[in-house]
């Protein structure tokens, strides 16, 4: 009989090893570089712990029952076809899950509320750095309204200072996600969503759009460079003086679908003539104005246009 059960037992063992292995620091969401991701990591580990208890209870019960009440056992005297319920047992397995859910719900709700607030919870909180992040197929445009600079596909942020991202999109629904700094939030046209993040360490962290939005989705990534406040100030001053101004023509070219070959920096932002949170159709109208007609990917025109590298169509 144990032969029959062995695969189940082996499976359980493998699963628990995987789960424990999952808690190691090698996975990005378990390797946080800021307070938001750290809070989420703690919540996740706590829930994995509780869930592991449930798994163990169910699997042990499962194994014991299968072994003890199998058909080909020697002693069938404990077979009871009329056993059809037990108020006591059923109450137990109604109440215990309720307790577990309360135990999960309280910290969850607490963290949900915390994440809506600035990461600096001290009595004299630092003012957050505001960055407007705009998704447009398939790149990220970042504006620093106060510093008056704009970047494409990368940002520099000062370490240990809360950053408030104001998210919007010029076209498709996207999701702004820097796993090592914290969880994601959608960027949507005609809408502005807010996300607080903060880096506690120097370094470069990968960010991306995680919400599928078409052909170039996979490569819609950006880098977040966490630098010291002094370096950040120097960088903004440098960029302000050395980088070119963003022209409307250049910005409109960015509105076309496609990737950019390199990151870009400008010494002015697009916010003075358009905020996509209030003007949802700007990108679509711009494409129309520039004479770009959406192409059926199976139509003959589209096929000729992007034969060799389908992913690099419309490079700006």
């Amino acid at each position, binding site marked *: 009989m144990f032969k029959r059960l062995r*695969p189940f037992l082996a499976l359980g063992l493998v*699963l628990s090893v995987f789960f424990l292995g*999952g808690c190691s620091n090698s*996975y*990005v*969401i378990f390797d946080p570089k800021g307070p938001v*991701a750290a809070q*989420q990591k703690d*919540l996740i580990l706590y829930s994995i712990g509780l*869930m592991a208890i*449930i*798994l163990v209870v169910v699997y042990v019960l*499962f194994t014991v*029952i*299968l072994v003890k009440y*199998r*058909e080909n056992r020697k002693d*069938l005297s404990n077979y*009871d*076809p*009329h056993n*059809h*319920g037990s108020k006591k*047992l*059923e109450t137990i*397995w*109604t109440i215990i899950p*309720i307790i577990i*859910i309360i135990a*999960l719900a309280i910290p*969850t709700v607490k963290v949900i509320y*915390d*994440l*809506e607030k600035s990461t600096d919870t001290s009595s004299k909180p630092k003012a957050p750095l505001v960055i407007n992040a705009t998704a447009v197929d398939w790149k990220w445009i970042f504006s620093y309204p106060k510093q008056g600079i704009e970047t494409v596909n990368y940002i520099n942020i000062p370490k240990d200072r809360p950053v408030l991202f104001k998210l919007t999109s010029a*076209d*498709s*629904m996207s*999701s702004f*996600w820097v*796993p090592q700094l914290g*969880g*994601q939030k959608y960027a*949507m046209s005609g809408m502005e969503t807010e996300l607080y993040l903060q880096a506690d360490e120097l370094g470069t962290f990968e960010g991306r759009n995680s*919400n*599928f*939005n*078409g*052909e170039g*989705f*996979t490569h819609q990534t950006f880098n977040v460079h966490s630098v010291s406040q002094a370096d950040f100030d120097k960088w903004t001053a440098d960029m302000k003086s050395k980088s070119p101004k963003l022209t409307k023509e250049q910005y409109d070219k960015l509105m076309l679908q496609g990737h950019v070959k390199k990151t870009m920096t400008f010494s002015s932002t697009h916010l003075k003539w358009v905020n996509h949170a209030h003007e*949802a159709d700007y*990108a679509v109208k711009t494409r129309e104005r520039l004479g770009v007609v*959406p192409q*059926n*990917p*199976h*139509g*003959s025109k589209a*096929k000729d246009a992007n034969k060799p590298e*389908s992913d690099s169509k419309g490079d700006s």
Partner: protein
Amino acid sequence: MKWDEFFVTGDPLIYGADVSIALTTVGILFYLTYFKKWKWLWTEWITTVDHKKLGIMYIAAAVLMMFRGGVDALLMRVQLATPDAKFLDSQHYNEIFTTHGTIMIIFMAMPFLIGLINVVIPLQIGARDVAFPYLNAVSFWTFFIGAMLFNISFVIGGSPSAGWTSYMPLAGNELSPGPGQNYYLLGLQIAGIGTLLTGINFLVTILKMRAPGMTLFRMPMFTWSALVTMVIIVFAFPILTIALALMTFDRLFGAHFFTLQGAGMDMLWANLFWLWGHPEVYIVILPAFGMFSEIISAFSRKTLFGYKAMVWAMVIIAAYSFMVWVHHFFTMGSGALVNSVFSITTMIIGIPTGIKIFNWLFTMYKGRISFTTPMLWSLGFIINFVIGGVTGVMLAMAAADYQYHNTYFLIAHFHYVLIGGTVYACFAGLIYWYPKMFGHRLNERIGKWVFWLFNIGFNVCFFPQFLLGFDGMPRRVYTYSAASGWGPLNMVSTIGGFVMGLAFLLFVYCLYYSFRYAKREVAGDPWGVGRTLEWATTSTVPPHYNFAVIPTVTGLDPVETFRNQKIDTKPKLADLKPIHMPDYSGVPFVMAVFFFIAGFGLVFEWYWMGIVGLIGVFITMIIRSFDRNEGFYVGLEEIKETERINE
């Protein structure tokens, strides 16, 4: 439109598919003509209104769709097995994951379950057919034609590529031009008609046509699950119908419900989609729960533990299924209060589900558990579904979900519930009730191989995806860099996927092998452990009228009672009366063909063709309205002969 825009060109994989489609079609036409099967096909199958035959056709179509969706899955797994792979380009990959998701949910899982419900439920409640047999045929044919319309997209015109969720504005004309997305809208719309009709049909059947003595709380658990599912369908599917219609207006007629221009609201689509989409998840899991309840009880030779709790758990799950849809987009920024509320409602669903798991475990407690293949699938379900369940609770924690959302953690979770729950139930139920459809059981030895291969392959395929999610791998990426470090786990996952594919092939072989060699059963209950009325029919494959005399029910598990009290269920001559049965009709099939014409015309925006098709649909409706055919009586002679009753 040029010919190379009508047919999809330029990809060797597609040309291969073209050739195999052509060869299969020629093969089928040749077989039907050479063996003179056309008349048989028309009179026995295409025009049938018999719930058992419709059920078999549903299941056959679903298995075919499982093959199609499975091939899609394996193509994706090949592309993802190694970093920077060039097997599929981005557009092709996007089309494949879109069709995979849509086909598996709408054209595989749901029809498979509806097929089993069709075969089993009327037998289980002691009815001779469903309440509206003609409507049942309309349901099947609209589903089937909707599925076919969706399926041809990959060779004609190009498949949709906006994901099975088809979020706006991505799915709009500006970002997804071409006929692809129209296939999604019209294929689902036509198939959705069938599902909604099925919901109404079985709701009435279960409420009005139960055998004498079968009160609501004496209904078998599978019947209960079907009843609850039908209620969800009736409430949820109209939402999909409307949402699809609105998006169709956006795409075809320049409306602005969800578009970027004209103050369209893309979030509205997400809300409407999941207002249907979440109940949809329960539409495909509750019948699975019902089947496991039947099978675990039968092969433990015990009555179900906590019957009433099981019923109420399902009713609560059904009610809650309409109150959790926001958990599909916690990241939309709805605010802390909304996310907290939906976090908690979602977690609460875990309570009734947990109750069900423990009740199944204690159904086996003090039983005599035999490890037949349906039972193995049911036991495998418990193991896998618990993992799917606990990871579901983890995803329900909104603050944590911000990190899991759109990652492989989510992918792994819903495959653990949809495969571990629904697909395992499809296998378990199909094997369990197979003799009711075909008169013989499936080979147990091959069946066990299939189970172990599939179960191991499934876990090898999907467990690593939880870890990939922890490592930040987003869903729907068509490739990834070697530097990401996702390569090894993806390779493991791909190997698991192919083991599942192997198990599927072995299962098909098992169908063939059993058809050739399995012993033909004669008695009504070939397993010898049946508890519900479908096992009370006198022959293995019930005659078209199901029961010569409708049995009377005195409690739960009537067949178990007959067995214990040695009650002879063989009908007596004196009790026989002529049986009234409905006529077969070719109208539902013709109606579906017109639906296809209309749908195909609208996909390519050939409005003349759409109008012709819709006029055809209305004409078939008018024909039906004036149809005075009122069925026929099965004579005593035929009943006596079928039931082998001697004077």
